[in-house]
């Protein structure tokens, strides 16, 4: 599955990564899988890093399939 990064996560991890759907097929599961596989991804465990599934902001309990588009991002800054 494809995971996208925006803001501070993108600064550290680049724009996207392709990973296997973890056994814990939730947003929280993907967060932990990424952080365990790469020390640089530790920032994904910060509470300020929010997530979306298929472009809808969700919490860590949201469940995923292989086709889900997951994104992790720091605080928005528009205008």
């Amino acid at each position: 599955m494809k995971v996208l990064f925006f803001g501070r996560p993108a600064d550290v991890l680049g724009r996207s990564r392709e990973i296997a759907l973890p056994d814990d097929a939730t947003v929280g599961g993907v967060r932990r899988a990424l952080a365990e596989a790469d020390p640089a991804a530790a920032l994904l465990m910060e509470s300020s890093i929010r997530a979306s599934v298929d472009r809808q902001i969700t919490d860590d309990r949201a469940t995923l399939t292989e086709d889900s588009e997951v994104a992790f991002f720091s605080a928005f800054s528009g205008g």
Partner: protein
Amino acid sequence: MRIETRLTTETIDAAAELDRFTKAAHGAGAVVSFTGIVRGGDDVTALELDHYPGMTEASIETLASETAARFGISSLLAVHRAGTIPAGETVVFVAAAAEHRRAAFQAADCLMDRLKTEAAFWKREISAEGGARRIEPHDKDHEDHKRWMEDDGGHR
């Protein structure tokens, strides 16, 4: 109620937007506009606004619709630029038309405060040497934003 939102990587011509908006806002007595311009200086030559196609547009649309409904606005326009925006160019243009001026001022003001912290953009300052510094909302932005959450018990 007429709501228009637009995300663009091209130059925003604030005057042309205001002209078009005002001409279409039949019967309004008051039009308030906001133009946000990239400030240079301190070695900043441009802002770089990253966005998430699909999610960013939806976030702007939601904010505009909620703002128009809240203040009884007859027409509302929000144009937001993304990509690399040189100092001196417009990053955002907002216009609100209403029968009376108070609603138009409040809607433009509230929409700007919400765009700052709720529109899905991520911002970096680009310096002359090519350096990039990540910008996140300031405490002031969060304070400004909170002003609009007291009356209605929050809108998130």
